[in-house]
């Protein structure tokens, strides 16, 4: 009887699968295109839109292996604010929805682990006949822990160039990739709703010579009519220059637009921002121009650490070193240790400086980029919120209460622990509306900024002759009309540039400690310099400088219950700041760093919620000052400056 019943049940399940017929869903043009003309736009970008440009779903080889079973659809629903069930079973929801999302699954083996996992075992054993793949297959099916080990091995194999040939079969992979890619693009169109939520197409190009991270997220401006004409460009055995060429080919072939966003330069062992070409020969103007055109923005902060700067590079910056611990030890799989000499090529501030020097030599700046943050979450859940951290991957979602204390899974496991993970950052885009075209164009003209999670509103305008009295009028209009916003360029006119800076706290978050201007320049003797200026801070009457430094803001965090109060700090800090060290003719950049008062990190929330004990080192790190980094404004000695692109009617050409 039992047997009969279960057969009936099985038949019922099968019947359910049979009902329904194949056909593709259709969406209207506004959703499937780039959103131009779909909604009414503001005159100026009137608010930042918040997004994550770096999310992995079960289509990523490693994410799937780490255990995630949620696909792009769930990822999109979560990002736009709906409650979903995480892979490990608990309900997950964002306190505040995101405005845009780029799902950036790895182009290499797009869906390959999912297929490996779903294939019959005998097929891998006897038809493919690859021992390594069979072992990974068994590990993936055995348990979540084994599955994570398998993927750690896979990443190491990718880093070392020892991926089994059967997984690299180009024809087979191309067909599989095309299937997944086109299905994915249709899903994106279905969720892309101009004015409400923007789903941008993208992927991650995952090149990793010798385990040194050169990864880029590639992001498209267009809908599936154009993006379906290409496939994600493989990272295995290709170079960044080939990636840029493929992007140019896409733009020429389809009339669309695409850009690339380098990330985790902190794990590149100095290779991300070199002074030379990859082969060690001198940088050329041609190469620099290609790079500048393809990469207007870098991802400066995410779960795998912060790449703004390192205390070794910025010894006079007392707030350097946020999110550096653990990550500074070596490259991505920790197969090679990082030496001090490598740091300069791994951090963004130094790269911005190098760019000035290269521009002086070549006439082109390869490293003139803006900054954004993102998550790099591998759980399909795009959250950078400290009190809602869902882990780097499914192995450390919230059900794993020991995640902060555990060693990490990559490479040799030496010295990197769960608590080194940051909760992840967000990208803020100053756009005139929430559409693919508007968000993409904000990235292209670098009118974007990074935060380490909080949603503070930061405006910066650079120009000549701004004054405090400008705040009384329509200062945003004045900023756009007589200056340039973040990401813009100023032509040196013989007087010191001034900057209108407004930083408004996250309305649901912590107060602000201070606003700093970070200046980098090429001095008269050809040396690169940097300096951090405190432009404005809270409670300035009482917090007077001593020894040139602004006293610490204080700390209201209660370590026992992971709470803080806004009794210190300010709701808004604004200032017109004029460069006191301006020297005519020197190339320079200026970006703004906004620092919050101390707040609990995810590790402290974990400790309180799960009642776990953190190591002494981890406790010290469990409270931090979250921050925002704006894109720089450049001061150029040339007489030709780029007008603020937003004032033009057509989108900027190239970047």
């Amino acid at each position, binding site marked *: 009887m039992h047997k009969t019943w279960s057969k009936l049940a099985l038949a019922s399940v099968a019947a359910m699968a*049979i009902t329904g*017929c194949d056909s593709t869903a259709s969406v209207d043009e506004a959703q499937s295109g780039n959103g131009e003309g779909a909604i009414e736009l503001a005159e100026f970008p009137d608010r930042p839109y918040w997004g994550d440009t770096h999310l992995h779903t079960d289509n990523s080889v490693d994410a799937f292996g780490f255990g995630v079973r949620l696909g792009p659809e769930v990822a999109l629903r979560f990002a736009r604010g709906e409650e979903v069930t995480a892979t490990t079973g608990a309900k997950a929801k964002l306190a505040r929805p995101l405005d845009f999302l780029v799902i950036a699954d790895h182009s290499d083996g797009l869906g390959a682990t999912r297929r490996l996992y779903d294939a019959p075992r005998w097929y891998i054993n006897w038809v493919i006949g690859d021992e390594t793949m069979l072992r990974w297959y068994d590990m993936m099916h055995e348990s979540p822990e084994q599955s994570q080990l398998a993927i750690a091995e896979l990443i190491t194999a990718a880093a070392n160039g020892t991926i089994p040939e059967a997984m690299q079969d180009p024809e087979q992979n191309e067909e599989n990739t095309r299937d997944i890619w086109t299905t994915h693009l249709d899903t994106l169109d279905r969720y892309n709703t101009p004015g409400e939520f923007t789903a941008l197409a993208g992927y991650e190009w995952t090149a990793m010579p010798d385990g040194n991270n050169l990864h880029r997220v590639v992001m498209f401006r267009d809908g599936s009519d154009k993006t379906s004409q290409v496939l994600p460009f493989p990272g295995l055995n290709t170079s960044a220059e080939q990636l840029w060429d493929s992007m140019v080919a896409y733009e020429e072939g389809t009339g669309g637009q695409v850009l690339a966003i380098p990330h985790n330069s902190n794990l590149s062992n100095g290779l991300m921002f070199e002074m030379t070409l990859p082969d060690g020969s001198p940088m050329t103007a041609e190469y620099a121009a290609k790079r500048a055109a393809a990469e207007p923005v870098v991802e400066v902060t995410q779960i795998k650490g912060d790449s703004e700067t390192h205390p070794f590079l910025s010894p006079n910056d007392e707030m350097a070193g946020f999110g550096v611990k653990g990550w500074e030890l070596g490259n991505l799989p920790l197969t090679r240790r990082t030496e001090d000499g490598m740091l300069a090529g791994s951090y963004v501030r130094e790269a911005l400086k190098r760019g000035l020097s290269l521009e002086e030599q070549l006439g082109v700046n390869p490293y003139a980029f803006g900054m954004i943050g993102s998550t790099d979450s591998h759980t399909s859940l795009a959250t950078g919120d400290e009190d809602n951290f869902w882990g780097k991957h499914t192995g450390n979602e919230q059900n794993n209460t020991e995640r902060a204390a555990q060693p990490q899974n990559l490479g040799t496991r030496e010295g990197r622990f769960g608590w080194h993970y940051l909760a992840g950052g967000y990208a803020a885009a100053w756009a005139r509306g929430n559409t693919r075209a508007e968000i993409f164009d904000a990235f292209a003209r670098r009118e974007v900024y990074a935060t380490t999670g909080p949603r503070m509103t930061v405006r910066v305008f650079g120009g000549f002759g701004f004054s405090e009295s400008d705040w009384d009028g329509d200062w945003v209009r004045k900023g756009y009309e007589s200056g340039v916003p973040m990401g813009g360029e100023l032509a040196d006119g013989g007087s010191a540039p001034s900057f209108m800076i407004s930083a408004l*706290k996250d309305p649901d978050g912590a107060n602000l400690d201070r606003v700093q201007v970070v200046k980098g320049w090429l001095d008269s003797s050809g040396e690169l310099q940097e300096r951090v200026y405190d432009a404005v801070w809270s409670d300035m009457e009482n917090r007077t400088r001593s020894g040139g430094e602004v006293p610490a803001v204080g700390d209201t965090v209660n370590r026992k219950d992971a709470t803080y109060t806004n009794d210190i700090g300010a709701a*808004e800090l*604004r200032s017109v700041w004029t460069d006191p060290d301006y020297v005519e003719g020197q190339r320079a950049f200026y970006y703004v760093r906004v620092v919050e008062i101390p707040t609990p990190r995810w590790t402290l929330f974990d400790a309180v919620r799960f009642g776990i004990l953190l190591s002494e080192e981890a406790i010290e790190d469990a409270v931090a000052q979250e921050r925002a980094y704006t894109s720089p404004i450049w001061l150029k000695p040339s007489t030709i400056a780029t007008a603020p692109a937003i004032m033009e009617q057509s989108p900027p050409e190239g970047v």
Partner: protein
Amino acid sequence: MTLPSWTREPLVHFLIAGLLVFAFFAATGANEPDPNSRVIEVDREAQTQLSLQFERTMGRSPTDAELDAQIERYVRDEVLYREALRLGLDQNDPIVRRRLASKMDMAASATAETAEPGEETLRAWFEENQSRFASAELITFDQLYFSEQDAAKAAQNRLNTGSAIDQFGEPISLPASMDGASLRELQDRFGSQFSEAVNQLGSGENWQGPVPSGFGWHLVKVRERKASEVLEFEAVRDRVESDWRSATIAARKDAAYGVLRGAYRVEISR
């Protein structure tokens, strides 16, 4: 003629379809091979499958020799598979267990991803879930910011007795007024506390509040509230379809599990 409502229940369709499939299997004897049998048949259909699998990997059809090799592998696999079942190796094996469980889930939901629902299905779904397809409620308001509650209250009294607005409020980079903003926009710009509080206010000429926010305190004049409206089906057809699809996938998994689960009594020792 109208049919009784139970005839429209998907679960009923599902059970009937299940019965039919079951009857079909029972009648034709088309069943999985009996592990106790010592006969392995590799019929034409099985050979075509093997040939297709080869083709998918290699991008070409197998030669006769290659097909023979495939068959040999298949036979070997089948022999070992049956012997493994005989030895009970499928029992208590986490790999087998997870694999089979996930196949059941996939079987229940797979076709919902690409199914094209009929107009009637979608309209019915739309009618049942109208609240999800309503336009957002829109609020038009002015606000004045104060860092301290007392200052806000003092200003409120004077404003509501005719003082001019330009004498009050402290500077902050927030919109002084918004036209037709949704609660979502309010939350984005002013935070959750503010949007929840303003949502409780009626419209009128008075300055209401002070309303708290993450920034401080606000006096708010709600000039207009436009109630949410249910949208026309045609205007939201795509959203309805996407919504229907997601719900159907989830419902099929749940329903399939529910049917199976119903046949079990679970005893958990405490």
